[in-house]
């Protein structure tokens, strides 16, 4: 990771506008030490410019003792400690910097990457996501690293769909896809591991799954067929394999897709997404009883799964149970307020039930979400 990020940090470092060191703190102690502080600040900058990192770190630390709230010093000390792989201290310094600069996307990004190195994965994910929300400017290398680490941490947190979406967004942005193959494979197989944590005997499996997912995304279907066929023949009993192939086949050859999904449930009896895909497929085929049955099974396994409530709601509405369907859809909407599909489901259901005001409110929400999307 260091090798990827270090040049990006350098770019960042020179882009930070230096502050007037003598006015960066108003404390009485700092005013008394202003002369020596200015000298230290200049010496630290000189040491940094001359790549004497250890000396620079030492001098920044001395200067920060005189002016603990010197933003520029905190930032450069944090980046230098990161580059020296002294992650634990880098975290402490960057947290002090961010307490004073909470709107700094680069700061959150560097803190998140540092916490990734100290294996504080929950915090790292929170802070990297925060940095994405705040924006990372036009530093492409930094952006690529932040998105990559965010995606692999989402997978490790079992947020596989979010991870896939993020990874495919990188593919769409024209990024080199080689480093994305394993992360995609892990997310596609729903294995909550970092690439470094892949069991040695299944690295090939993960790679094949990732390559297959990439082929599907690029609409290279012949290649995807070949890869998935090989994956299935080599790893027929591994959890996740049949779900991935089934998800692919439901689009191309739905009957085969159904078989794969059912095979996945035999191997992984508590597989919720496989049940939801089956429910959707059966509802699409107007086989409401089977569709509703799979959605209900999914909800038994995951009572708080908003997608399961949504699919069950769609099935119930299609079967004519308007009240039951609306109840499920409203539960889904409350958990996923930004999911447009649920809102459209509700518009149709409310309209059919004569609840025009409710339908109109949902339409308004859809328009608001569309505007929000466009703004991003």
């Amino acid at each position, binding site marked *: 990771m260091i090798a990827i990020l270090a040049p990006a940090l350098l770019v960042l470092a020179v882009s930070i506008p230096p502050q007037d060191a003598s006015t960066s703190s108003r404390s009485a102690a700092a005013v008394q030490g202003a002369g020596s502080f200015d000298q230290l600040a200049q010496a630290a900058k000189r040491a940094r410019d001359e790549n004497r990192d250890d000396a620079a770190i030492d001098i920044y630390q001395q200067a920060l003792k005189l002016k603990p709230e010197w933003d520029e010093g905190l930032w450069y000390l944090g980046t230098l400690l990161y580059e020296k792989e002294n992650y*634990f201290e880098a*975290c*402490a310094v960057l*947290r*002090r910097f*961010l*307490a*004073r600069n909470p709107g700094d996307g680069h700061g959150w990004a560097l803190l998140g990457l540092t916490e990734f190195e*100290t*294996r*504080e*994965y*929950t*915090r790292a994910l929170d802070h990297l996501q925060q940095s994405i929300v705040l924006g990372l400017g036009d530093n492409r290398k930094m952006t690529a690293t932040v998105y990559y680490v965010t995606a692999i941490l989402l997978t*490790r*947190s*079992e947020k596989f769909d979010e991870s896939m979406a993020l990874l495919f967004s990188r593919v769409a942005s024209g990024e080199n896809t080689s480093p994305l193959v394993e992360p995609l494979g892990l997310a596609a197989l729903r*294995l*909550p*591991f*970092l690439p*470094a*944590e892949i*069991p*040695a005997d299944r690295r090939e499996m993960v790679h094949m799954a990732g390559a297959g997912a990439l082929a599907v995304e690029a609409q290279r279907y012949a290649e995807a067929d070949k890869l998935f066929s090989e994956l299935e023949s080599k790893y027929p009993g591994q*959890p996740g394999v049949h779900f991935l192939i089934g998800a692919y086949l439901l689009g191309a050859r739905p009957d085969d897709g159904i078989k794969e999904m059912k095979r996945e449930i035999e191997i*992984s*009896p*508590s597989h919720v997404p496989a049940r939801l895909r089956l429910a959707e497929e059966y509802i699409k085929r107007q086989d409401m009883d089977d569709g509703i049955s799979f959605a209900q099974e999914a909800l038994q*396994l995951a009572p708080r799964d908003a997608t399961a409530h949504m699919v069950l709601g769609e099935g119930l509405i299609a079967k004519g149970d308007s009240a039951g369907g609306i109840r499920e859809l409203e539960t889904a909407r409350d958990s996923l307020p930004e999911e447009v599909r649920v809102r459209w489901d509700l518009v149709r259901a409310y309209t059919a039930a004569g609840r025009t005001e409710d339908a109109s409110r949902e339409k308004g929400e859809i328009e608001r979400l569309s505007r929000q999307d466009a703004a991003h």
Partner: protein
Amino acid sequence: MLPVFPLLAMLSLAASAAPSPPQKSFDEIARQADSARNADRMTEAIGLYREGVRLRPSWNEGWLWLGNLLYDQDRFPEAEASFAHFVVLVPKPGPAWALKGLCEFEMRDFAHAMEDLETWVHADFHGSNDLTDVAAFHWALLLTRQSHFAQALYVLADRAQRRGESPVLLEAMGLASLRMPNLPEDYPPEFRERVWLAGKAAFYVSMHDFARGQEYSHRLLAEYGQQPDVHYFQGTLLKFQLKPAEAAQEFRKELEISPQHVPALLELAQIDIDSSDLAEALSLAKHAVEIEPANPDAHHILGRALLAAGQARESAQELESAERLAPDSSAIHFHLAAAYRELGRKEDAQREMATYVSIKKREGDLDRAAGGQDAEHPLEAPK
């Protein structure tokens, strides 16, 4: 000397002549600090609380707020220093012990973190539900790190029942289940899959969803059945599901892989005692004592086996050894009372029963304070 005096005089004159900003009173700073905090101006509030405690170091409320605000910004060394002031100033600091311990945990000062979190635990887990959850979770991580796996699982399963599944909880449960004395951030990456699978299995079994627990424990066995501790873990899951015969098979498989596995020896010995296979129980428990002579559980189980075999005198000796090694174990006092009764030592038996009742009461109080139940923990081996 002479030239010095005029210089001093000049300096002092200069100092007194210089315009100085009007000094704010402590009360004013305290009021402004509270206002800044209430208005979510945290950086300003931190500065004001700092100034307040500088002016009045005995301002315990100031230290507490300062610590809390710094903790919220993940500035753990500074927060820890504030809580350290607070706990000295206040006779019953309650939740501040937990907060101080959490800061120390984040600073990797695990010895002090354990000390402070245990002080908090013994003060009946004071604090909000959120703080109790976070602090108890970190206490469990430290218990695992110190190889107190069953106790850690007890705490973690309670959290599972109240808060549901989360990646960090699964990881913590997986480590304790596989008897790995590690923190989530310091175990080898190649153990990730087995830790995750064990965590899933332990989580679902603690939620009494045995079918789902079994799905993950079978995956664990399929991938890692030849690794130490995996069959032992499977045995504990089966024992909890009241399947002693199947559990015994798993403990035997563990002993084939790890012949010196004392917990497996003791679990098997307990199953033997319950099924009156006392010859094997005695043999297994004696072997466990030979391997780990300072293990109170080994002496305890051997004492129970001897008592069941009618050897009350030898049983009392073993149970007394166990009591010396673990004076706070209620079960040891209970069985020692039974051994004394067999020997006709009524007063000793009564004393042990009184101790047993007192410990059980305290354990019950702690359970209730932690929001748990009095019942035996699902994953803890019955003693």
